[in-house]
């Protein structure tokens, strides 16, 4: 009797000891997260309410919401609105970003699933094919954007040459410079770069689906299309949802691809590009900070809605 009491006491202290250890184990991470996630964010939000300039980063004065929206009443009684919230360039960038993100992630997910289904089948040289497919993802965007700029070149580019030979176009085109095609060019390169990544995520999901489920479905004579929608898709859905949210966040912040491939094109300028422009290239540091803050708010709202509507469980508990 006394013995069990002793053990219980020991366990209790062990439990407490673990709780304490857990806290100390988390501490370095919390400090690091504060440095990377909290401090820059707070600083940027603060900058967005000041008139700080890049030349005088410590000398900004508090000006309230003026960077977002400022109502001016002119001497003749007319009312003028200024600030990011009424800036057509900003809303153009928002529209470009949303368009780019929705289309690219949609294509990447669907194509990724198709490629994964092909790769999941048995064929010769699977390892080699998988390695070849992984490569676009493993290459720095700065390199692949240049590679594509070169291939899409209006004079020497191989894409124009091939499209011309196949009869898809009648004359050589400046894909990245032309405002009508710039967005397509960016989308194409992004889909090329990221589809393999999505495919591998889907593939890993597919390989976790037990083979006997397919066998059973086969014996019951269920059509393969129905098997895919009723069995495969629901089973890989949790993995797919997490993959899509990570992809979507990257797409909504897309920067380097557009910066290298279509510099200064209003047709492809995204929120990240325009805010960087104001932050660093133009002398509108506080204004750019306001745009960065808005970008953060938009993304946070999106993630919240996505998790809520899609019933995504980030900690993956529901999978168990």
């Amino acid at each position, binding site marked *: 009797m006394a013995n069990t009491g002793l053990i219980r006491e020991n366990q209790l202290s062990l439990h407490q000891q673990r709780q304490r250890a857990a806290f100390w184990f988390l501490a370095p991470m919390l400090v690091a997260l504060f440095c990377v996630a909290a401090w820059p964010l707070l600083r940027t939000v603060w900058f967005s309410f000041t008139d700080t300039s890049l030349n005088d980063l410590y000398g900004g004065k508090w000006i309230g919401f003026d960077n977002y929206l400022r109502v001016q009443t002119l001497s003749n009684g007319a009312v003028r609105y200024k600030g990011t919230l009424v800036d057509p360039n900003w809303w153009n960038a928002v529209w470009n970003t949303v368009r780019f993100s929705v289309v690219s992630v949609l294509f990447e997910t669907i194509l990724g699933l198709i490629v994964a289904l092909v790769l999941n*089948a048995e*064929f010769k040289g699977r390892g080699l094919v998988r390695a070849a497919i992984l490569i676009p993802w493993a290459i*720095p965007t700065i*390199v692949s954007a*240049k590679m594509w700029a070169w*291939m899409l070149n209006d004079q020497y580019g191989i894409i124009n*040459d091939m499209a011309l030979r196949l009869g898809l176009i009648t004359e050589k085109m400046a894909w990245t410079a032309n405002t009508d095609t710039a967005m397509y060019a960016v989308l194409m390169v992004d889909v090329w770069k990221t589809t393999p990544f999505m495919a591998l995520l889907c593939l890993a999901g597919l390989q976790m689906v037990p083979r006997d489920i397919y066998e059973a479905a086969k014996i019951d004579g269920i059509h393969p299309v129905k098997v895919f929608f009723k069995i495969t898709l629901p089973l890989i859905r949790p*993995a797919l949802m997490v993959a899509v949210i990570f992809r979507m966040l990257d797409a909504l912040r897309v920067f*380097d691809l557009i910066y290298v491939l279509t510099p200064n094109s209003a047709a492809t300028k995204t929120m990240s590009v325009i805010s960087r422009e104001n932050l660093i290239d133009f002398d509108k540091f506080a204004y750019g900070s306001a745009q960065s803050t808005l970008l953060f708010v938009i993304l946070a709202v999106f993630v919240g809605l996505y998790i809520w509507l899609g019933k995504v469980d980030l900690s993956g508990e529901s999978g168990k």
Partner: protein
Amino acid sequence: MARAVTTQRKLVYTIAAWSVALLIFFPVLWTILTSFKTETSAVANPPELLSADWTLENYAEVWGRTDYPRFFLNSVIISVGSTLLGLLIAIPAAWSMAFVPSNKTKDLLMWMLSTKMMPAAAVLIPMYLIFQRTGLFDTRTGLVLALMLMNLPVIIWMLYTYFKEIPGEILEAARMDGASLRDEVLYILTPMAIPGIASTMLLNIILAWNEAFWTITLTTTKAAPLSAFIASFSAPQGLFYAKLSAASTMAIAPILILGWFSQKQLVRGLTFGAVK
């Protein structure tokens, strides 16, 4: 009969898979091919393939004009260093989250995800200010720290999902046998999670290797890695495509070789452990 059908189907899949792979791989192949052509041959119209003038001159020139070994060394130190330092912080943290769960775990994950909601340019200035003040600007130490901080959320997220797959009973049993906390993490958990840790490590080395925005802005010359090397070749838009291709090939070759030998771990790592 059934066997013939299976073989036929296998052939169809093989052709389909290889076509997809070739299509995806083509731009890289084209860049590598261009890097071995003379500048005139590279811009020939229509593009030349078999009739091209092949040469190694581009590589010789890129090698001669720049200090490739230094860029390479910086890249290795920065990507490996930041990953190891990240693991040192992430393993205990992930242990806490996975085995001593609390109602804060979800908030923590959400907080980590929020690092992907800020445009890099906005994080840049606060970081830049810190770097200038502490003298970390253009040092390897500074970049190791910066990239560790950038990638830490991903490292922890991955490790957390791996650790959760390990049954807690095993750790409990070790504890019953008198293992201390240190023994538990060091000798029981870590060896069991080696595949997961290896995938996490690989993925993060690649992420750090490819990182361009931070490495270019926070360095000038001393600590500049290969991403800065490739960016320095962007200026001539004219007839330097073969040299640009050679420089690109040199920048991506190490990562291609690493990825090639470890694609199995990578594929597993890429799932973020999200799939069970």
